[in-house]
């Protein structure tokens, strides 16, 4: 499932790369779509050239490829989410285990980027997704429904960045002029979660 997750994320980012770059052109440096598209192509290459033997290896290998190959801020940020998940994920993988690992991944990216919810970053999509997963585990819902809830929470989180004023990254230099635009990092994070819901077993 993890390989399929990255393949689907790559497909969605490739499909939406112009939208992501357009969002980034409004408040950033207009490279988010291209960078992430290239990064996920490198992830695909890495997963094909060295077929991973476990879910943990998929996450670690994908995270490393993103860190090494993206070139923009989204590489180290997404890379640290997946590498941290790979570090703490226990096998066999359960929904509860996945949810706990995802939560730690989000903490890792918050720490690396020194970003908190409300700063108009990918955290504004990832943190609600993480909370939705934790609630789904608590309520004992199935995997597919849990991932769908996480995807919905991420999409809503991304949309909620539109009225926010950016406090991190290049967009923060724009001050109030960053208001009214969806954060490209939150938008791509929502795509990652949408991909997860699509490949759910």
């Amino acid at each position: 499932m993890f390989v399929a997750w990255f393949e689907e994320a790559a497909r969605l980012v490739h499909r939406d790369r112009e939208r992501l770059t357009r969002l980034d052109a409004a408040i950033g440096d207009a490279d988010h779509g291209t960078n992430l598209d290239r990064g996920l192509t490198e992830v695909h290459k890495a997963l094909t050239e060295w077929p991973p033997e476990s879910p943990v290896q998929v996450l670690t290998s994908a995270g490393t490829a993103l860190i090494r190959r993206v070139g923009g801020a989204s590489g180290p940020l997404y890379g640290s989410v997946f590498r941290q998940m790979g570090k703490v994920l226990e096998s066999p993988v359960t929904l509860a285990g996945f949810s706990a690992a995802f939560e730690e991944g989000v903490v890792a990216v918050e720490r690396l980027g020194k970003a908190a919810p409300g700063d108009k970053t990918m955290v504004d999509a990832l943190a609600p997704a993480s909370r939705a997963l934790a609630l789904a585990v608590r309520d004992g819902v199935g995997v597919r429904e849990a991932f769908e809830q996480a995807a919905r929470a991420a999409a809503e989180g991304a949309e909620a960045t539109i009225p926010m004023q950016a406090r991190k990254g290049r967009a923060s230099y724009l001050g109030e002029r960053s208001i009214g635009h969806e954060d490209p990092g939150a938008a791509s994070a929502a795509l990652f979660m949408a991909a997860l819901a699509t490949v759910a077993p």
Partner: protein
Amino acid sequence: MVGLVLVSHSAGLAAEAVALAKGIAGAQVPVAAAGGTEDGGLGTSVDLVEEAVRAVDQGDGVVLIPDLGSSVLTARLLEEDGRIVVADVPFVEGAIAAAVAAGADAPLADVLASAEESRTFRKL
């Protein structure tokens, strides 16, 4: 001697900042540039930063001085407690302060402290 790596989005900016720091602090100070992506674009390459760290690492520690954004994030991923540290400082002023301190054989903590002092230097 403590090594320095100047990490910038731009290869040209990193290279010129290295030239300036060495010009002021002395050519013997190990300062290396890690600028731009591997294909020469604007951005950060982990490989270039790691290569630069190896080039300046004499065993006394290395200070990474990033400009902003992905340079900072990439530098932070490479931190090793007490051996490779990231300086949260203005790029040019911090690089020169650190290079001068490193050139005077200051230990890692002092080189970092000198760089950090540049944050509050007033020009006028």
